[in-house]
């Protein structure tokens, strides 16, 4: 099992951070224009659609605890060598710490290439998320 873990502290509330992670209009502002399609119920399909790519990733909601925890199964759909590695497991953990929220992203996969790719992507995406929540401006512009 290969694992990537990223922890960041954001000046926000669990409710706002939860919205930011799950509302498509918000997500696409900090995530390269990527749009999530999901109703956030356990067992529901999850999709990530990227501009110029179309369906980029897909999976299923495995666990939901609003404002606390979200677990998705997650497979890349547009790069054959990544898709071949099958489903990974991605977890968001939200934990309030005074006036900040500790966000932990844990991404686990049997595949090595997939984890290497997301290890490069998450720091950018999560840095952009933190900027958007704290300053109103993301780091990343939609591609």
């Amino acid at each position, binding site marked *: 099992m290969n694992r990537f873990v990223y*922890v960041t*502290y954001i*000046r926000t509330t669990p409710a706002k951070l939860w919205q930011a992670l799950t509302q498509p209009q918000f997500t696409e502002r900090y995530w390269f224009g990527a749009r999530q399609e999901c109703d956030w119920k356990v067992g529901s399909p999850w999709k990530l659609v990227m501009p110029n790519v179309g369906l980029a990733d897909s999976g299923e909601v495995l666990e939901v605890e609003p404002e606390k925890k979200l677990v998705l199964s997650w497979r890349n759909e547009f790069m054959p060598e990544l898709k071949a590695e099958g489903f990974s497991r991605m977890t968001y953990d939200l934990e309030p710490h*005074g006036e*900040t929220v500790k966000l932990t992203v844990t991404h686990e996969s049997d595949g090595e290439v997939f984890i290497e790719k997301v290890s490069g992507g998450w*720091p950018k995406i999560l840095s952009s998320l*933190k900027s958007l929540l704290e*300053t109103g*401006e993301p*780091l990343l512009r939609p591609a």
Partner: protein
Amino acid sequence: MTEKPDAVHIIHIAAPAQTVWDALTDADRSASYFFGNRWEFGEVGGDFRVTKPDGDLDSEGKVLVREAPRLMRVTWKVVWIEELKDTPPGEVEWRLDQMGEITRLTVSEFRRPPQMAPYAEAARNGWSIILSGLKTLVETGRPMPKTLPEGPQ
């Protein structure tokens, strides 16, 4: 150099590398994102010191590389934990890569002594707090609300 780090911590900050470097190397400002600790970087060959809010020494080392605003590397020996007193120093490197209007800050830990293994998780969390706080300070002009590290103190 292809030396493999023991741990890597990355954050992207909306500021030029020089601005990030200035915040990183200003001892007074460091207290606002380093849970009240201060770090001070000398010139190459000079001292690196971390002091606690009460003035006690936390860690010490030597500056190995100082190339503003791109690269800093120090030896780092934790001195405040009794069990680590005789442990050899590890090394920490800060690399700043400016990409357009954004700077990627990469902190890498090298040569972590085996005695430090029980503290690895606490160290990762500590670096997350430091880098999150540095980013908030640079981007918003005010410190992040104080967050204390978890784990062994």
